[in-house]
């Protein structure tokens, strides 16, 4: 696949890019396996509360005596999970919408893009705040009916609604590319051969869009991570004792006081999040330079 080769070449050419990619993979692995590798359970309280970093607790402890390292790794898991699933939602909606709009063309396209225009100018995160705050009970009931009661309802709400905030850019770009690709010879030929629309879309168009999809994917993931952390900071994130980077940062920020600086509560989760976002953004930039040299931001 052309995209794959392009990506690999880019990684080989730039040391930094390769480093970032490895770093992201490393963080993902940490998120999956990390919480099990430490001695502590992320929810286990103890008597040693608010201790600075030491040999026993590399990142220190929080108010309930829980090990911050374990909680930061668990937080990574939560944040990355929301980011991944949210991006998936965003991707699915955005790509489908953009492809259909571009492919249909004419009035349908015009109408669909007008809707995007309207949605673009809405303060979406504000509306998400309202949705997440008010829909918790119904979602809990629905999940229970579907025998999925163990999934935290907040998680579902965050994934769905944050995902639905970020699909607009993807839709616009995909639609633009679809419009261009539509005119190309091989598409025209396939249409002339009488192939069904669905086949055209999925077999021919989609693979050619994969490069651009990948680029905007790497832009959407950090955006969703920040949105989730933002909502968690405002108190709309996952419930304790679970944690995400956003809730950990909120706890750290809440602990700032003139008597004793509990700097580790803020620095470690905040630092990890920043560094991960930096790597993702850098990776996104690099991929964009390779796969889509026209569209610079």
């Amino acid at each position, binding site marked *: 696949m052309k995209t794959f080769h392009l990506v690999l070449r880019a990684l080989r050419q730039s040391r930094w890019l390769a480093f970032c990619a490895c770093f992201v993979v490393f963080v993902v692995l940490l998120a999956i396996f990390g919480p099990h590798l430490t001695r502590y359970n992320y*929810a*286990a*309280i103890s*008597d040693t*509360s*608010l201790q600075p970093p030491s040999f026993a607790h590399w990142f220190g402890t929080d*108010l*309930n*005596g829980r090990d911050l390292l374990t909680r930061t790794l668990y937080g990574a898991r939560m944040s990355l999970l929301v980011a991944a699933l949210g991006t998936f939602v965003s991707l699915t909606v955005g790509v489908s919408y953009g492809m259909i709009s571009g492919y249909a063309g004419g009035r349908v396209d015009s109408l669909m893009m007008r809707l995007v225009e309207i949605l673009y100018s809405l303060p979406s995160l504000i509306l998400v705040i309202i949705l997440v*705050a008010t829909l918790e009970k119904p979602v809990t009931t629905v999940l229970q009916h579907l025998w999925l009661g163990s999934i935290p309802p907040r998680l579902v709400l965050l994934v769905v609604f944050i995902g639905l905030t970020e699909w607009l850019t993807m839709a616009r770009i995909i639609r633009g590319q679809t419009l261009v690709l539509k005119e190309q010879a091989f598409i025209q030929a396939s249409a002339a051969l009488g192939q069904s629309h669905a086949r055209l879309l999925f077999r021919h168009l989609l693979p050619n869009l994969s490069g651009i999809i990948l680029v905007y994917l790497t832009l959407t993931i950090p955006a969703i991570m920040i949105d989730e952390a933002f909502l968690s900071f405002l*108190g709309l994130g996952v*419930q*304790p*004792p679970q944690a995400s980077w956003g809730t950990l940062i909120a706890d750290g920020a*809440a*602990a*700032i*006081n*003139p*008597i*004793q600086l*509990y700097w580790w509560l803020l620095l470690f989760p905040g630092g990890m999040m920043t560094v991960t976002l930096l790597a993702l953004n850098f990776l996104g930039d690099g991929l964009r330079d390779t796969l889509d040299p026209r569209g610079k931001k």
Partner: protein
Amino acid sequence: MNASPASRRRIPAAYILAAWLAGILALALAFFYFFGGWTLSEPADLTICNGDEPQTLDPAIITGQLEGRLALALFEGLTTRNAKGDIVPGMAESWQISPDGLTYTFHLRSDAKWSNGMPLTAYDFLNSWERTLNPATASQYAYQLYYLVNGEAYGTGKLKDFSQVGVKAPDARTLIVTLTHPTAFFLELTSFQTLCPVYLPGIEKYGNNWMKPPNLVSNGPYCLKVWRLNDYILLEANPYYWRKVAFQRIKVLPTSNATTCLNLFSSGKLDLILDKNSVPASLVDKLREKPYFHANPFGGTAFVRYNVKRKPFDDLRVRKALALAIDKEDIVRKITRAGEPVAETLVPPGNKDYIPPLGPKYNPEEARKLLAEAGYPGGKGFPNVQMLYAKRSTPEQVAIELQALWQQELGITSITLRGQEWKVYLNTQSLIDFDLCLSAWVGDYNDPQTFLDMFVTDGGNNLTGWSNPTYDHLLDQSQAIPDPAQRMKLLQEMETILVDQDMPIVPLYYYVGISLYRNEKVAGFEPNFVDDHRWGVLYPPEKKP
């Protein structure tokens, strides 16, 4: 060739652009300074952190403690409290109580005036109490006037004629109150904001805007000068108040974040922090050694409510097991940290005439035995239950700790936490839509009844589904008995049923209020049971009134 004008030294346009933008910045600042949006705060003698923005300043409808503090700085009832918390004359300079305890005759001071100079009369009290009781006002504390004859009938709308209610004003300086049964704490109620008078002509004239400065007319130590929402409130000494106050201007900040309060206090922008919620719990240990730290125990209790109508909490053994497994010392030492006393009973100490029962003590062995007897040995098979709590920092930490303790001691892993925002939590609690609930209660007056009368059958504040006819009967009896000692004994029997026998609740700890102020700056602040510290009695040490 062209004589390039570039031989002149050109200022790089980047700098020009920057200068241009900086100019706009400065202009914007000036614009907003002069046209509002950014007003410089006014100076004050004393700055107090009140914990949050008040919802209203109408004393008749106030329910929150922070609104109450502001209302009691602006308004004054028949009685008031001194620095120690004792009841002393307020608008009424003297009173008589009939031997049967049913009739109170108040004599108002001759110099009682409103802040606009108009005289304050007994008719003001009469009309204000009518307004409070009137169902149209929707006062949630109107029930404090139900102790009056026909008070409840008028308050629920069954009686339409207010002249039949037990309060009369035979002349401008006398108020006669008739009660349905002897109420030992009635004089405390008259000092509470609900029974304060309001300036009715102002309400008529300004309608919904009567509380905004400068429309607000008050009779207490202070007047309202500025009220900017979520920004600050400025109080100024009332020239017509019957006493001289020491602080002429008080600024009240609605800062709700505890660490922000502390930060402002240590940088000198704040002089007095009153509310324990405004002090970060994690720092209390360190703050305790500072000279500006003051602890004042008061009448409040944190406890766990069971929903006794839901399994498994319909089984007394389960309730007892969970109760005995809580190491309350752990909670007050690690989480709340203000030196709260552990609570084995509901009614906090502070009333010298009341002797509480012993209450159950921490006993994990017994707890495990009881749990096994109930059918959940080692916590196995314990059904999925949820513990409801309000999403504020202390209750959240306590809930987390309780969940972990129960897992540790009893092996129960099926208790999940359900944190909700304050209003949502209150609603859920009032609907008894929980299995367990972390709750609290602060007494309205210094008498065990304010705690014990919550749990009567179908009581509005019972919220456990628990019902015990003996308990209800004892309460009725206690209200009819004139002898205080006998009455206290009956109340003690009630509490024994509540915390020792049936256990629909598990008391956790008693509240200790924390206040921060520098002794060189503020005096007149002393601990009292109802945590009622009137601002009018505060003074700077060098100016003792």
